[in-house]
């Protein structure tokens, strides 16, 4: 087993022919992932961020960043973010009550998660809670994904702050060609932001891309 540190507390484990990401964590497994000593396996099929790392892209991050996470769902990716941003703070916004109740359990265990049960498409409804952040991570299966990100970054993202958006083609328009949608989305973003990198998440998530950008 060989370890390769790609970011703070984030490793790629190489074991024979296999390789997979993992985060250093003092907490027990959260969603059925395996643990190797103090490393928690990060399953790319379950988390889009892990799929992006598997595909060879690692955005620059700092472990003391303030993060706004839109669409935290039941907290799978969030639990690893909590390991990585161990000196920062993560505001986790989720709209649906069922997965949120699971996320609450995670927030009780970790010291750096602020759970917020609110609709990410109405950022002013949590404007009195969330501070200015360095990083917005968005993974929402919503038709208005682009608008949601733009609204939130206008209110909460610092200048020169980064954003990472997991775009799902099928929830924007299930009938159009994914590639056409991606081109449109990238075009929309590039008028307001500086795009650093885009790429797909195959074979882990179909018809998805990630967009890493900076608020200029």
């Amino acid at each position, binding site marked *: 087993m060989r370890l390769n540190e790609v970011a703070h507390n984030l490793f790629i484990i190489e074991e024979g022919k296999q390789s997979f990401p993992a985060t250093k964590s003092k907490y027990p497994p959260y969603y059925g992932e395996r643990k190797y000593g103090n490393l928690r396996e990060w399953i790319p099929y379950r988390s889009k961020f892990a799929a992006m790392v598997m595909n060879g892209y690692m955005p620059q991050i700092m472990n003391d960043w303030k993060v706004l996470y839109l669409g935290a*769902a*039941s907290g799978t990716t969030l639990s690893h973010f909590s390991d990585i941003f161990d000196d920062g*703070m993560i505001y986790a916004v989720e709209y*649906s*009550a*069922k*997965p*949120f*109740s699971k996320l*609450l359990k995670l*927030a*009780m265990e970790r*010291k750096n*998660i*602020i*759970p*917020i*049960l*609110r609709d990410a498409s109405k950022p*002013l*409804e*949590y*404007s*009195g*809670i*969330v*501070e*200015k952040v360095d990083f917005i991570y968005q993974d929402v*299966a919503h038709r208005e994904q682009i608008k949601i990100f733009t609204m939130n970054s*206008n*209110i909460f993202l610092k200048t020169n702050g980064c954003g990472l958006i997991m775009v*799902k083609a*099928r*929830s924007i328009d*299930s009938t159009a060609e994914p590639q056409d949608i991606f081109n449109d989305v990238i075009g929309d973003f590039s008028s307001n932001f500086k795009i650093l990198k885009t790429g797909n998440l195959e074979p882990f998530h179909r018809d998805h891309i990630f967009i890493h950008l900076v608020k200029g």
Partner: protein
Amino acid sequence: MKKWKVWFGEIDEEIEASDNLVSSFYAAINDEPIPFSIVERGVQIFGSEEEYYRNLRKTAVVAGEKLVEEELKREDRYAVMLLKSLDQVDESINLLNEKLRDIVEIKESKVTDILREKIDELRELRNEIEKEIELVISKVCPNLSEMLGGVISAGLLEKAGSLERLAMLPASTIQILGAERSLFRAKARMKKGKVARPPKHGIIFQHKYVRTLPKTKRGKMARFLAAKIAIASKIDYFSGELNPELSDSIKHRFEELLR
């Protein structure tokens, strides 16, 4: 001077600290972005940044628990009751309309104008109730609501009794929910050895993808839709996360059958 609402109180020129953090947490709604640093002001109240975040986290967890409990508490029963009143209002509108027409045929008067007005009001009420059903259903069972819309989802919940029971039903039962009478009639005929045609669909007939197909294909669509509903209700009951692939798949199946 504008008053800004933050999770620990209200801020104009001075900071007015909230005496109940849990209730002020989800009331921190403003109509434009806050122009100052929330953390800086918060530190003035809580003493240090460490204390600020400790309090914020604790409040978020407690307020979240409270809100989740409220949102999940018997919301499915609420939707079902709303649906019942919706049906009742519909019926009243129809009855009154009929009577109004009968009267107007004989004579128009002040009373008929009032009656017409009242019927319009009832229609408005009807739309309000329907909107509320959509809203509640989209929270309690996002997948069902995405696939079927609020009214049909609520109808299924009503027939099944609750989301929990709907999640436990097999697809074959879901397919004919609401067509119990014709099912048992068919069964009775079969018992006597006569030819019988059991129903192809119950409530789900109201869905546009079933209703608009030619008669020979409705059964296929109903069977497919019921299978997807069985999956969706289980997801809604156990995890509650939206899976848009389900509604995509029924759309595809519909387009296939349309050909």
